[in-house]
């Protein structure tokens, strides 16, 4: 019975920790619980928060790949969020791609990778005011190092697949369309107007102040996709709070 009790606690350790963290702190007792069970929970692959389509269904993220040097002059133009993107015209390859990735489970594997790549994003540079916070800078450096390694790895594989000297990876975001956009304005779900490039610099996105579902202004300027590293009021949360 002790083993059963141990396992039952292990099952809830990760979701409890996941739910009890905010931008300000993680609850001490759930962090302690999760840390105590860490090897068991992690190696048995029980470390899930079970956040399926929560808190809200969000935009999807794709990865565009361009050959460098470009194989087509049309593909040398920079990709912006305010310019509709036609995948066949603007990139040499992208994923997830229903045409080339089949069956559906294979497509979904690539879809998860592109979401992971987007979640791993850390900007190339920090604004001056954030550089004063040493904890925040330290966290950013770690995340940027990982993001760079991830970019190198995927780029190398894609360059090999596309038989190109090197490639450029572009993060793309497909906005959620409102009922009005689909039924009144006649947009299709894959409308190029719903697809935009995400910038390397987090704070200059032209549509950053628009709600992705309604297109309405949503208040203060903020990134459309939350970075994996967290900040609140310009202050970083210590590393161990996020990754106990």
């Amino acid at each position, binding site marked *: 019975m002790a083993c059963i009790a141990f396992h039952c606690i292990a099952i809830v350790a990760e979701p409890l920790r996941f*739910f009890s963290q905010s931008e300000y702190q993680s609850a001490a007792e759930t962090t302690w619980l999760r840390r105590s069970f860490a090897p068991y929970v992690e190696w048995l692959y029980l*470390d899930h928060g079970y*956040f399926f*389509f929560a808190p*809200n269904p969000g935009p999807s993220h794709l990865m565009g790949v361009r050959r460098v040097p470009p194989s087509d002059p049309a593909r040398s133009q920079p990709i912006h969020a305010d310019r509709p993107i036609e995948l066949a015209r603007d990139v040499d390859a992208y994923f997830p791609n229903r045409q080339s990735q089949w069956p559906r489970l*294979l497509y979904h594997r690539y879809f998860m990778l592109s979401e992971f790549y987007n979640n791993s994003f850390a900007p190339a540079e920090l604004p001056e005011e954030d550089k004063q916070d040493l904890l925040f800078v330290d966290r950013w450096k770690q995340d940027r190092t990982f993001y760079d390694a991830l970019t190198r790895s*995927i780029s190398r594989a894609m360059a090999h697949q596309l038989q190109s000297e090197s490639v450029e990876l572009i993060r793309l975001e*497909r906005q*959620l369309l409102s009922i009005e956009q689909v039924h009144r304005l006649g947009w299709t779900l894959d409308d190029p107007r719903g697809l935009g490039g995400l910038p390397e610099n987090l704070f200059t996105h032209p549509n950053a102040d628009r709600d992705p579902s309604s297109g309405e202004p949503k208040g203060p300027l903020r990134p459309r996709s939350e970075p994996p590293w967290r900040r609140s009021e310009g202050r970083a949360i210590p590393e161990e709070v996020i*990754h106990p």
Partner: protein
Amino acid sequence: MSRSHFESPEPPLVSRSTAIVSWLNDWRDSLGRFFLEPRTAETLSVLRLTTGAMIAYIHAIWLSDLASFFGPDALLDLEVTRSIHSRVTKWTYLASTDSLTIAWLHEVTAMLAGIAMTLGFATRLTVPLAWFTTLMTAHRLAPFLFGLDQITLSLTMYLMLGRSGTFWSIDSWIRKRWSQSGKDIPAWARWLGWGEQPSPCWTNTVATRLIQLHLCVIYLFGGLGKLRGWMWWDGTAMWFAATSYEYQSLDLTWIGLYPWLGSIATHATLLWELFYVALIWPRLTRPLVLMMAVCVHGGIALYMGMITFGWMMIVANLIFVEPSWWRRRDAEISLAVPPRPNER
């Protein structure tokens, strides 16, 4: 009127402590029955059949594009994998080599283990092998995973505990042949699961209860997570989830013409997830909760392109079907099938 007219006299301290001890004993006995009362393994065998097939399919997909997932030109090289592992305990031998041959051997072994698991062949060996090889792949390819891998690995882990090979399996066929021949089953055959009897066993109950509790945890936290989002409150979550182009497999945009329908579906999903943990246990509400599970996961499978995930969640929910139900269905099928000439 004095208080003594209304209040019973204070019970003596000894009788109060006796009542507490008695209550604790009852509670312990109930818990013991819940987790350890022996049961047969028909339900676990159904889960073994389907989960094994899914494991074989998962590895067939990895094999179909092996060079993108493993080897020197993999999308995630060893540096990235080790970087992910530097923060968490995710040891896998697949992170120490980028040999495509080893990856191929590993994936083929895992696929064959999945097939053997489905067929119920040497389940004492093949179910743990399917779980271990799938776990090793999961740790190597973590960024490619999603809910399907979570539920498949969890089910396989619990199936290792029970005697899932005692029904509808090659193991049970071998056991019958052996017992008909009158010979003793040798020790090595017992290790493969050929000596396991289909009689009730407490390990089946432990496996069943752990799957049931794990499902309750998944739905409870899934529901609580949704409570944080405004789309689940204002009834638009169904629209936004179903019309995400990357997920969509069948057109569900017509739901936007009937906003009340989308709103009801959103709230029904939310309430079902939140209260699953309570309503799945009473026999009165269980069929309703299971029907809702089929509707929600069937909808995900059909409309949102996650056929594998939707299917496995429906399969996982079957754990709440009593073994006797499968026994009755098995008996009905046996009666419906005419006996072969040599059985008359």
